[in-house]
């Protein structure tokens, strides 16, 4: 079975009447890194909370590695590790005791060797006897990850894992996630940092207003929705775009010194070579050129705006 998580028709309406999720269908493949993107209040955390058993779905079904999260909740939950969005930790307990507690909660016997490996991987080994209240915010964030990994989960949910952490720690976490993927752990992360999804994810899902807008391979998404830009620095400024080039999507800078060609990677007709030939035919000379392409963030913003 290639899919480790199967979400079918999951909806959630809270007692207040607010509908957080509207018939979500989603599958997550075994061993992949899946990024769930969406603005605040889109339903990301509700969806994760339902899969983890913290929130009850109003309708629909969720399977984790073949186990229904309602009828087979014990087996399903045993496979899942969750790093919550908030820094929710005990204050007075030691690092070692709190990760031991989590392992026990998941029904596993004590394994000092495994816990040492996890704490070392997260640079917390030296702090193992420290009270949690003495840790910095970044260390607490790592501790939450250590707790989620204490019971050797096969699926790891990271809900905004790098919110409020410094750049170094963010990169450390990215490396950790890559290592986990190497060990066969499926990682589902929600994030506001598109850079994070772009860096790590194999596939990307965009959720907005409780609806899953799309799910694509990251590379496909960039290719499908991404716009490339070829900018030419002109030897002589133009007053306007020449008639011979009117069929092409072009932008001329205010001073007429830069001509930018916007093209879509899906459309073979818009090849860069062909465009440059037409430029030369039109007698336009340029001194420099450069290309840029849309980031995942541009695509995300564009998709969300389209839906609003």
């Amino acid at each position, binding site marked *: 079975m290639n899919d480790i998580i199967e979400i079918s028709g999951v909806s959630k309406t*809270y007692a207040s009447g607010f509908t957080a999720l509207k018939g979500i269908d989603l599958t997550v493949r075994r061993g992949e890194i899946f990024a769930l993107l969406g603005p605040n209040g889109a339903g990301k955390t509700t969806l994760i909370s339902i899969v983890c058993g913290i929130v*009850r779905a109003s309708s629909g079904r969720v399977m984790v590695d073949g186990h229904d999260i309602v009828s087979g909740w014990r087996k399903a939950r045993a496979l899942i590790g*969750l790093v919550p969005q908030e820094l929710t930790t005990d*204050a007075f307990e030691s690092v070692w*005791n709190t990760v031991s507690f989590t392992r*026990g909660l998941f029904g596993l016997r004590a394994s000092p060797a495994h816990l040492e490996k996890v704490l070392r991987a997260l640079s917390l080994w030296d702090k193992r006897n420290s009270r949690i209240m003495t840790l910095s915010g970044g260390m607490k964030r790592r501790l939450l990850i250590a707790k989620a990994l204490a019971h050797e989960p096969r699926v790891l949910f990271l809900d905004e894992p790098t919110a409020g952490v410094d750049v170094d720690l963010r990169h450390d976490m990215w490396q950790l996630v890559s290592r986990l993927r190497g060990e066969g752990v499926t990682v589902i992360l929600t994030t506001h940092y598109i850079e994070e999804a772009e860096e790590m994810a194999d596939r990307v899902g965009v959720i907005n207003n409780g609806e899953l807008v799309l799910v694509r391979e990251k590379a496909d998404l960039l290719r499908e929705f991404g716009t490339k830009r070829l900018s030419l620095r002109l030897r002589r400024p133009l007053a306007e775009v020449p008639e011979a080039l009117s069929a092409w999507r072009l932008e001329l800078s205010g001073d007429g010194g830069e001509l930018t060609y916007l093209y879509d990677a899906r459309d073979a007709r818009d090849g860069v070579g062909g465009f440059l030939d037409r430029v030369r035919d039109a007698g336009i000379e340029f001194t420099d050129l450069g290309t840029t392409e849309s980031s995942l963030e541009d695509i995300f913003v564009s998709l969300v705006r389209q839906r609003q």
Partner: protein
Amino acid sequence: MNLEAIGAIYRYEMARARRTVTQTIVSPVISTSLYFVVFGAALGSRIQSVGGVGYGSFIVPGLVMLSLLGQSISNASFGIYFPRFTGTIYEILSAPVSPVEIVLGYAGAAATKSVILGAIILLTAGLFVPLHFLHPVWMVAFLVLTAVTFSLVGFIIGIWADGFEKLQIVPLLIVTPLTFLGGSFYSINMLPRPWRTVALFDPVVYLISGFRWSFYGIADVNVGVSLAMTAVFLAVSLAIVWWIFRTGYRLKT
């Protein structure tokens, strides 16, 4: 049954008790000693005996119950409320742990602490007055049953409370008055008739009476009734806890 999880919750809660030993053990022991000084030595010298038992000895079961009820509720309510307050409850709710296992861990630890406290108070009392255990097995049974029952009550309060103030409301405004009025320091037979009848509506009367019977063989109400009432409290508490988990009340949305 996820025994490892029950053990993890139990150990975690017992570790918390060790960290707060002053609050959990020392404070009730000092309070109890003060009760002995005030009621046993000062007032007790003016009351010869109650039902043939010296007044100092007579109040021991009531004092144990007073601390047992308060601490069982306090330990269990704080134990489950604190994770809700800090948000760490997500860990319990997302773990492969059943409601029964969660209750066994939290209420079991709270009851254990209360029973240990009861034993310490008895030892402390033994320093002031002579003690007799006419029915030691029943004494332990009443002690454990009451500790478990009121730990469940504490668990319910810990789920119900949405602030630290509410955690204190039930123990301070309901349980402590009922314990004082339930015959901790006197036999309800010492009350005038109308008040004796009113006192029988106080459920704590049955707990203290049965517990005192196990010490000295004297009781305000029949011991069978005391035992039945204790069982009823336990059953009601279990039913409410079951309802909480079935509906997800204050735990799951």
